[in-house]
């Protein structure tokens, strides 16, 4: 099928994009790389009257450093993230998870900002942004505002952004001295994660000083596994301590049952994958 008809705008600045979106109201959609939106349009699950294509806004592309943060332009493509030396150095978790997104063709067009704004709970990057304590920079008619990842994902396919707003950058604290790992479980090539776990661990002497653990596809939004994080803080960096903490990975989650997996199976996966992700992040043999 082909999408139903829409008008098309290709602004060259963020300011212009915000102006067009504000005037158009709720019936306009932002087009980033299109790798989620175009399939939705083609299946006619959405029929916006106007698409505002951010592809012509050069300022939205690329990765830079600003003090203790990486600033990743929202239109930076997955393929660019995979090749970026700053991401490799300061946020390797993001690169590792991005490498598992869909397939090469999709990664050549899909963007980090599009993926986060789409807010699919089965998407890999929302949970990674949570585990990295990323902060979203959002531009709107009243100027820019910052929203932490923990407040950005509101519900299924829903973020804290209002009509007329555009995600312009993802700011990621540089994580030096942390080990990280993304553990994704899916059954076939290019499939969505049945469950995924993003983990970041900072070790001190023989212990785990701090941990961040976030879950993909265990509810209508990505979720922090706070019970696991609390159990890990100050725990011995051992396989037993990790297994014991990972047992509470599904606490407070509400996974769905669908054709790919039951809620019970997802609950089981969350615990197993959390154990593996934390052990790998901490450089601990989980045997």
């Amino acid at each position, binding site marked *: 099928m082909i999408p139903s008809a829409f008008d098309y705008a290709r602004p060259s600045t963020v300011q212009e994009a915000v102006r067009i979106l504000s005037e158009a109201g709720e019936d306009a959609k932002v087009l980033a790389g*299109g790798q989620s939106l*175009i399939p939705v*349009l*083609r*299946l006619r699950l959405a029929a916006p009257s106007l698409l505002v294509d951010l592809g012509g806004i050069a300022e939205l592309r690329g990765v830079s450093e600003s003090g203790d943060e990486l600033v990743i332009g929202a239109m930076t493509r997955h393929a660019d993230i995979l090749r970026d030396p700053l991401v490799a150095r300061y946020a390797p978790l993001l690169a590792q998870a991005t490498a598992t997104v869909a*397939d*090469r063709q999709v990664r*050549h067009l899909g963007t980090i900002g599009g993926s986060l704004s789409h807010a699919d709970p089965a998407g890999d990057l929302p949970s990674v942004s949570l585990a990295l304590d990323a902060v979203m920079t959002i531009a709107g008619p009243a100027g820019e505002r910052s929203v932490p990842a923990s407040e950005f994902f509101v519900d299924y396919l829903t973020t804290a952004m209002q009509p007329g707003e555009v995600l312009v950058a993802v700011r990621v604290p540089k994580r030096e001295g942390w080990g990280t790992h993304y553990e994704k479980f899916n059954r076939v090539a290019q499939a969505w994660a049945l469950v995924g776990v993003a983990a970041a661990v900072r070790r001190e002497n023989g212990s785990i000083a701090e941990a961040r653990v976030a879950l993909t596809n265990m509810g209508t939004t990505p979720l922090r596994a706070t019970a696991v994080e609390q159990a890990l803080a100050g725990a011995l960096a051992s396989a037993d301590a990790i297994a014991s903490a990972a047992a509470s990975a599904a606490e407070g989650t509400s996974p769905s049952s669908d054709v790919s997996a039951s809620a019970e199976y997802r609950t089981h996966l969350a615990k197993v994958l959390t154990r593996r992700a934390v052990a790998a992040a901490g450089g601990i043999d989980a045997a």
Partner: protein
Amino acid sequence: MPRISLTVDGVRYDDDVEPRTLLVHHLRERLGKVGTVVGCDTSNCGACTVLMSGEAVKSCTVLAVQADGADITTVEGLAGPDGKLHPVQQAFHDRHALQCGFCTPGMIMAAVDLLAENPDPTDEEIREGLEGNLCRCTGYQNIVRAVRDAAAAMRSAAAPQESVPIGGGA
């Protein structure tokens, strides 16, 4: 209607397009590039893969307006002007890397893209690299062999030509 300019297989085309026109439909229906096929409705199968500014994309998941200004290579643009097949096409032929052939244009374009980034992939890297392309005739074994052969052929063609001493001179 927006006017777009594309270079497709070395030829420039300027056309007015409806914003909702998918690149694959523009290629097939307006420009007659029917070598690029549509195999699914869900962005999964990869049969419509073309190179856009040198990188593989699924042309069913790109609006023609998004491609404005781009240089597109389809499977029809791979062979040389004399009709000599591209090494990947030749290897698919030699290795019988197809049965029904419907996935072949996309498989070939995805393989060309993969080999541009990784000229000497392992079998596993080939399988990972082609994960965006589905073959429903279970032809993957021969496809992997063909890509491996093509990689070797392209590497040896790219290697600097060593002067071969004739007559065993010292």
